[in-house]
């Protein structure tokens, strides 16, 4: 009599679980583990492996992404952890209890068995997964699949045949039009569907004559969907009805047909599917070949209505997965690491602001317990990852800021010392380093090492006005030009003659303002927009200034995205060199005000640190 009435009753009423049979519910209730988490404690860490579905029995949690942004609140009766479980991918969000919380942990194998046994249960979680993907900041507009309307999936006008045609005529038309399914109409009204399979099963296999009417073998009144429905609804419908083709109707009129392969096609455009694919690779060659899809994927994301921030997160998400998987492959080749370590991304990857063209900046932070002999291991690991990244298209850092450089492969203690030196003895070289290294983010391994380093940097930097002042002066090196033709700083010679480096003159000054303001506010946020928001919150800059600068950055990045889109369509390699002629008058005007905003903020920064 191992009945657990309280737990069974709770499970049976859970959304998604309410479709389980009594026996399945009982199996769930008697296989779970119960854990208790005090407010402030973590349940899952970003990047870790998750083997369980987590059901909140009482209390509440927050899911936050690696930048600390709130993704979702989870309360009693809600689940989390299913995306990593269903995609076999590392955990993407940190889950922190915000109240004292009791959690039922359901083993992943039990969960996946239930999905196989019970289609409704499976459907519920597939739907929740799409909802979660949509809620994910990367995916809000950078969609491939789930939130598109079905009508957007239709690639051609519907191919149809009149019901009076013979089987042979219909089959001939299918061959001509190269389709595997065709709609049948009766006086213009849609009345049935006929597929390759129908012809195979209902004609050829039975030895029927080809001269009979198509009407005799078609499926009458097939399932259809409205053109305004969402793509994932179409996918679900096809799954549930076990069909491969779905006619699409707009106000009752046939407008086209979608097939499972249409859905697959856009599904594979979704960044998370590539991430998933990369996470499955066990060899460097496998990752390289998965990355071949990246340029096309970026091109397709650029051509959707993506803005710079979303694109930056999208590209960085994929770089992060490549890095993580290379680290894992390194670990499996070299054995367990001799001590805890963190693989740290710097520069634009650190800020989650990579564009279509990025090289690698990275470093290794080792636990202080490390001994000299460990370096052999980490040198080998760094080589695997750096070489792998290069082979995947993230070319070696020209300044050698990579983990393979012994200088950037050090213990936490040495790293703290580096930063202290840069901050307290700010020579020109130190300031250059600071610009790269202050944008650090843990991509793989022990995040606590990076957190500790950041805490120590914050302590040092926010108190050191001289250092910040020198950084501010340094940030003046590249000023955005004011007028277009007269004062725009155009390259005077070479490959990029008469173009403007929009990254150097537009984006970098903004990134630097944000970095210095955030440091002055004692904030260790890393992405530029988050730095500006945090600085505004701390009162270091006004809310209006922050909003204006973010607008300026949005606009400049949008111009860059459009420019790179044009280049990729023309078969060119994307770069940052914008020619004045390719901008509309309105875009020029907007760019001018964006630049003006940056200049005002640069001036304010000089004032703030009393630099004339």
């Amino acid at each position, binding site marked *: 009599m191992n009945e657990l009435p*309280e737990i069974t009753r709770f499970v049976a009423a859970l959304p998604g679980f309410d479709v389980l049979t009594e026996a399945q519910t009982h199996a769930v209730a008697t296989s779970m583990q119960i854990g208790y988490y005090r407010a402030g404690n973590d349940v899952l860490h970003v990047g870790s492996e998750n083997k369980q579905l987590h059901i909140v029995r009482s209390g509440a949690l927050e899911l936050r992404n690696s930048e600390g942004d709130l993704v979702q609140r989870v309360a009693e009766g809600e689940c989390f952890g299913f995306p990593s479980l269903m995609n076999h991918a590392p955990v993407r969000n940190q889950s922190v209890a915000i109240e004292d919380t009791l959690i039922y942990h359901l083993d992943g194998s039990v969960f996946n068995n239930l999905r196989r046994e019970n289609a409704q249960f499976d459907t519920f979680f597939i739907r929740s997964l799409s909802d979660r993907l949509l809620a994910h900041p990367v995916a809000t507009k950078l969609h491939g699949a789930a939130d598109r309307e079905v009508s957007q999936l239709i690639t051609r006008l519907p191919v149809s045949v009149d019901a009076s045609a013979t089987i042979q005529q219909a089959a001939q038309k299918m061959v001509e039009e190269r389709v595997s399914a065709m709609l049948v109409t009766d006086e213009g009204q849609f009345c049935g569907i006929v597929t390759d399979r129908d012809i195979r099963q209902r004609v050829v296999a039975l030895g029927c004559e080809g001269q009979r009417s198509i009407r005799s073998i078609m499926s009458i009144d097939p399932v259809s969907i409205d053109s305004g429905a969402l793509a994932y609804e179409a996918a679900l419908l096809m799954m549930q009805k076990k069909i491969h083709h779905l006619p699409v109707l707009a106000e009752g009129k046939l407008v086209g047909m979608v097939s499972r392969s249409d859905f697959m096609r856009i599904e594979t455009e979704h960044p998370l599917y590539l991430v998933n694919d990369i996470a499955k690779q066990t060899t460097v060659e496998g990752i390289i070949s998965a990355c071949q899809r990246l340029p096309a994927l970026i091109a397709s994301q650029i051509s959707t209505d993506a803005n710079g921030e979303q694109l930056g997160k999208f590209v960085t998400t994929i770089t992060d997965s490549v890095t993580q998987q290379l680290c894992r492959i390194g670990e499996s080749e070299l054995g367990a690491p001799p001590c805890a370590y963190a693989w740290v991304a710097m520069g634009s990857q650190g800020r989650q602001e990579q564009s279509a063209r990025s090289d690698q900046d990275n470093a290794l932070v080792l636990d202080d317990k490390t001994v000299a002999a460990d370096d052999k291991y980490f040198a080998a690991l760094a080589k695997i990852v750096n070489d792998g990244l290069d082979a995947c298209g993230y070319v070696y850092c020209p300044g050698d800021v990579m983990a393979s450089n012994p200088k950037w492969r050090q213990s936490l203690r040495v790293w703290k010392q580096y930063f202290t030196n840069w901050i307290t003895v700010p020579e020109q070289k130190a300031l250059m380093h600071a610009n790269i290294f202050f944008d650090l983010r843990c991509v793989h391994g022990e995040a606590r090492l990076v957190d500790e380093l950041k805490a120590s940097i914050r302590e040092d930097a926010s108190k050191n006005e001289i250092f910040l002042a020198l950084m501010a002066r340094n940030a003046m090196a590249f000023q955005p030009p004011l007028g277009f033709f007269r004062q725009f700083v155009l390259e005077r010679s070479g490959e990029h003659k008469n173009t403007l480096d929009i990254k150097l003159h537009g984006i970098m000054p903004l990134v630097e303002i944000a970095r210095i303001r955030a440091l002055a506010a004692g904030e260790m946020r890393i992405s530029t927009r988050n730095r500006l928001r945090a600085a505004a919150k701390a009162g270091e800059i006004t809310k209006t200034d922050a909003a204006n600068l973010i607008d300026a950055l949005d606009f400049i990045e949008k111009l860059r995205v459009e420019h790179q889109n044009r280049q990729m369509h023309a078969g060119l390699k994307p770069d940052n060199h914008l020619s004045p002629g390719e901008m509309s008058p309105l875009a020029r005007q907007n760019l001018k005000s964006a630049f003006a905003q940056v200049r005002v903020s640069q001036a304010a920064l000089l004032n703030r640190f009393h630099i004339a």
Partner: protein
Amino acid sequence: MNQVLLTLQRWRALRRSGDAVFRTFIEQPIPAPGTLFTDAELVCMDIETTGLNPKTVDMLSIGWVLIRNSKVDLATAEAHIVKPNGGVGHSASVHGLTDTMVSDGIKPSEAIERVLGVLAGRVLVVHHAGLDKTLLDRICRERYSEKLLVPMIDTLALEHRRRSRHHHLGENISLRLPDLRQHYNLPWYRGHNCLTDAVASAELLIAMVAAREQHQKTTLADLY
């Protein structure tokens, strides 16, 4: 109970007892008091009885669940109906077990044998241990001529000690299982089902440990 004394008593009992089941139970050493809570295996137990006097009552049902890695493992949840010597009497109104239901139950001696099986090498956890432990001792003595010699955590006594240390012990403070659970933000469970109560006390214990300062370093000795 003092763990040194317990070890001594177990050693004496081992020399005296000839029963194979009891010897197997005793031969499995008890976990060292310095064992971390998260490394130990604990058995949370609850018993429904015919009344309140441990010298005369009969056991009607017994349920338990294990705590491992600081988690309550529901796969280990187990409960048994026990056939009493006498009738269920008025107690049926409390736990809902009727004479018909318990007539198919296992014998108390069989129940204690299973209890020894699950407790070997583990720690017993009971909320308000007085009645349940005395009853288990009595049945154990009837069957093996020895008390149930096992290390034990009483969640009620533990909370009582904690609160008197922090002077939080007002006159109106209730240490009943449902009230303590509410204090730790645990959900309300319908009581008087031995397995539900066992799970309820198990959840309470992991919550109490999580609430301790430096809870990762909590040892069994901190909880006895």
